[in-house]
């Protein structure tokens, strides 16, 4: 097994777990599409990184987080739904990204679909650290966010600052989405925050199982996907998505069976 494959597998495990875990909240918030759309916002950041010769992932993260904060702020002021604002922001970002990268189709393709064969030790280290920090901090605010979903009044009566907690969560999602881009690209990274969580939801009767299964299914999609793509010489991003959807399909069948037998 080549070094690059090992780097990419380690990256995939950590990114899969963190994206799955953070995504479990996004699905509950009914913001699944926000996670998906948010990922496209990274494109102009990647483009600026390429154009000005700094790490495109730093640009991607900066754009993701700036967009998340802008959307969060506009939503609080105008009460327009998250989905609508993210829809506006992501098409704008996509347009901007394509304008900036229009003459460099190869880089644009890499940004859209990811290229895990480019993973370096440095990148793997960053992915591991970011994933651990994101999961740890999300675990601290997980119940607070769920309580706010049940009722904002309940959360506030409990002394929870909902605005700050949401902002921290958006920050962490931006970080995880930024590192996930290298695996499946901006076009498909939304998959990593949505599909493992909805698969987990099919099998979970409580919150603990739900969050653990989400994390496990995230890694269980990414790792076999990369191995399979590697042995079949296929692009890894789409293979990861196909593996994840297969897991989801299996959970639908299991859920259906459980309902039939109960």
């Amino acid at each position, binding site marked *: 097994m080549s070094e690059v494959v090992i780097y990419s597998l380690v990256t995939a495990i950590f990114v899969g777990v963190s994206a799955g875990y953070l995504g479990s909240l996004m699905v509950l918030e009914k913001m699944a599409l926000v996670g998906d759309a948010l990922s496209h916002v990274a494109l102009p950041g990647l483009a600026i990184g390429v154009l000005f010769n700094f790490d495109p992932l730093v640009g991607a993260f900066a754009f993701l987080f700036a967009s998340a904060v802008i959307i969060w702020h506009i939503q609080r002021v105008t009460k327009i739904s998250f989905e609508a604002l993210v829809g506006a922001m992501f098409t704008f970002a996509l347009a901007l990204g394509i304008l900036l990268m229009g003459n460099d189709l190869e880089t644009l393709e890499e940004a859209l679909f990811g290229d895990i064969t480019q993973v370096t030790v440095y990148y793997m280290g960053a992915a591991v650290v970011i994933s651990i920090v994101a999961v740890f901090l999300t675990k601290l605010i997980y119940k607070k966010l*769920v309580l706010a*979903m*049940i009722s904002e*009044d*309940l959360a*506030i009566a409990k002394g929870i600052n909902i605005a700050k907690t949401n902002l921290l969560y958006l920050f962490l999602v931006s970080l995880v989405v930024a590192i996930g881009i290298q695996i499946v690209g901006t076009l498909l990274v939304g998959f990593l925050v949505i599909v493992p969580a909805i698969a987990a*939801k099919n099998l979970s*009767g*409580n919150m603990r199982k739900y969050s653990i299964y989400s994390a496990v299914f995230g890694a269980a999609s990414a790792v076999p996907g990369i191995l399979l793509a590697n042995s079949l010489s296929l692009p890894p991003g789409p293979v990861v998505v196909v593996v994840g959807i297969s897991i989801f399909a299996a959970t639908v069948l299991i859920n259906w069976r459980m309902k039939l037998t109960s």
Partner: protein
Amino acid sequence: MANSNGYILKVSNLEVKIQNQVLLDHVNFNVEKGTTMAILGPNGAGKTVLLRTLLNRVPHTGTIDWTEEVKIGYVPQYVSTADIPMTVREFLSIGNGVDLESTLDKVRLTDKSILDKRLGVVSGGQLRRILIAWALNDNPNVLFLDEPTSGVDMDSEEPIYLMLNEFKKEHKITIFLITHNIHIVQEYADSLLALNKCVTYCGAAAKIIEPDIQRQIYGEPVCVETMRGER
């Protein structure tokens, strides 16, 4: 009439305006410690806004003076539990290291197997009791109940108020109760604040059965000047 030492809350000239719309207009009232104050009024009268303002959640002018340190337990009117895979045990454990079985005893939920059920599948009455249990978990000295029996059948409603009443007496809790049920106001509240953005009645709850008072509350809104401590 209670002396001022008996008040847990004094509200004066409370005004809430959001985007130039007046939601609460010069609201004045006091609440005695260890009593239940019912809050009554038509939809959109500002009842929930009042509770949220007392929680310091809404920008306002005027003064809200809690005369002692308060720990508020809150039972909201609406909760969204259907889509969340959380069990009753997990919900009641949020931020609390309490003995869950005794918590359920407090709200007369005798079947402990409910702890492992999902919040989204318990009945309306059970959910209201669970929410009350949640609010009581922190040993609050003030309870905010926003239509605590909405979605509960009439047979289950009365036992919930009986239970709350016992709780109030045992632990000297002050209760703020939003309700539309005149019978509940008469039976379980000590004082009544009728709202229609402004105060339309503030006084003894028992007077709710008087036709004049009902006209005052449900007829054309007439704002009244409330005296401090009027009961």
